[in-house]
């Protein structure tokens, strides 16, 4: 009974997006065949799947490479973002001083940064991880810093008066209180992480979905580009869902709104 109930609620939260995605694909397919859009411009989903399947072994290998890169980069990026947020939160002087540099870090175009990174850090995995980190850390850092400063005043007063150390205030009040907002940032970062990996692969790689895309682009294989995009989107969704589940589990104390 209970299991069935769980099953039902799981299904209930899964079918709307599923239907929406299917509807989206159907509309796409319909538009392509109805409007006679040429496949080199916008291939039909059916064609994409078909051609993608034909290259599945190759795609699989590249996907695996991208997954590894994404996970590593996302982990490092989120950790960096949290760390920066925490350090800057605890030392407000640093925060006001370094915020401009954080924004600066988000505004160095990859075409200028890419060669520099490769020249300095070689052709290995390091410059790629740096690119993903650069993409992921920022939303986490901004959201976390905002969340950490918005602590409930009454609880804060209690903590201070009862002699909680700075550390305890942070661990027991500010951090849990900011979790919902931190997770906003992590969700944004998770969504960007895969794209970050793709961009990282563009600045120099010999494997991964990003590399694959560039090759297909130069071979004018729009269908395979879209197969790659399909994989990218799927990976992003997976990342997002994992974060969502983690959030549900960590912020489970919050009463459900209706």
């Amino acid at each position, binding site marked *: 009974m209970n299991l069935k109930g769980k099953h039902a609620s799981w299904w209930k939260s899964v079918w709307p997006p599923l239907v929406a995605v299917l509807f989206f694909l159907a509309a796409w397919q319909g538009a392509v065949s109805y409007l006679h859009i040429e496949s080199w411009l916008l291939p039909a989903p059916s064609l994409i799947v078909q051609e993608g399947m034909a290259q599945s072994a190759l795609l699989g290998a590249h996907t695996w490479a991208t997954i590894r890169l994404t996970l590593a980069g996302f982990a490092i990026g989120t950790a960096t973002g949290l760390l920066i947020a925490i350090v800057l939160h605890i030392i407000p002087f640093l925060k006001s001083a370094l915020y401009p540099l954080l924004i600066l870090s988000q505004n160095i175009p990859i075409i200028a940064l890419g060669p520099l990174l490769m020249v300095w850090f070689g052709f290995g995995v390091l410059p790629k991880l740096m690119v993903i980190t650069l993409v992921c850390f920022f939303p986490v850092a901004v959201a976390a810093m905002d969340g950490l400063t918005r602590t409930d005043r009454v*609880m804060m007063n*209690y903590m201070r*008066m009862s002699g*909680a150390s700075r550390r305890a205030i942070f661990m*027991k009040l500010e951090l849990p209180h900011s979790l919902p907002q931190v997770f906003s940032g992590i969700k944004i970062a998770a969504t960007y992480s895969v794209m970050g990996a793709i961009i990282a692969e563009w600045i120099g790689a010999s494997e991964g979905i990003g590399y694959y895309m560039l090759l297909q682009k130069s071979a004018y294989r729009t269908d395979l580009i879209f197969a790659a995009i399909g994989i990218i989107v799927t990976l992003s969704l997976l990342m997002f869902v994992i974060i969502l589940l983690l959030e549900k589990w960590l912020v489970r104390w919050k009463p459900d709104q209706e």
Partner: protein
Amino acid sequence: MSLHPTDLTSPHMADEQQRAGEAQVLTSTPPALELDGISLAFREKRSSLPVLQEVSLTVKPGEFVSLIGPSGSGKSTLFHIIGGLLQPQQGRIRMHGRDITGERGHISYMPQQPALFPWRTTLDNILLGQENAPRKDAAASSRSVSERERRKEALQWLEQVGLGKFAKAYPHTLSGGMQQRAAFLRALLSPQELMLLDEPFSALDALTRADMQQWLLQMWEKNRRSVLFITHSIEEALLLSDRIYVLSARPASVVHVVDVPFPRPRREEITLDPRFVEWKRTMTGWMREEKYKLDDNINNAEGVHKNTSDGGVNHYE
């Protein structure tokens, strides 16, 4: 009822004598808490709101002292100052003779709003005070007990205040009075010797309240922690306290000090004692008097009258 300032028929003792007595005590053991001429005004953009005006008070070790005063007079603010949250613009705070003005962590505190942490269960919430306390206090109260033992003990306390069933519940599922009891326990279980309790029982029904009072009394009589207690109930203050400070309306200053003459241990029956009833009437009268002054103030536009000075405090026993 027609209590008037002139109705003051209760016995009172000369200030001087009392002062001398206090001084003697001071030389032997310094008071657990001593406020010395605390003043504070909140500053807004243009205006300034004087809230505390030369408030001095003393809590001797193991003494139970109550603060009573009109709503909005500045009682909670005084607690914030003692707790080191706010810096007084004038005056010093001493604890056992040591100046602790602006220092934090020297008190067990129960705030006026429960301020339970929504992500902690009731049990974890009431353990928070112990977790927060600076190490030395924790050590002083021989808190080298294990985490598990502490939880077990906390659970027993919860059961005593009728929350045993809710140890694992989150605060938002507790009723107002239940939250207040949890916040009270949190302060009670904090290891610091001096407890500041800000209207701990206001959201409780008369009986639960009486239970809690009795229970607090018994515990206090056993352990003799120093307590500073804000309440709106004159009866409660008389029942529990060794001494009561009556504050004026904002800006608050001490207008009366009462050394409660009833012997310990006290039980609820004392409230039927004619002397008790008499005291209650007297103090109600004082409050009323303050109230009138306040109303006058308001009517005389917003001008702030400084109508009591330190020397104007009346001291009774």
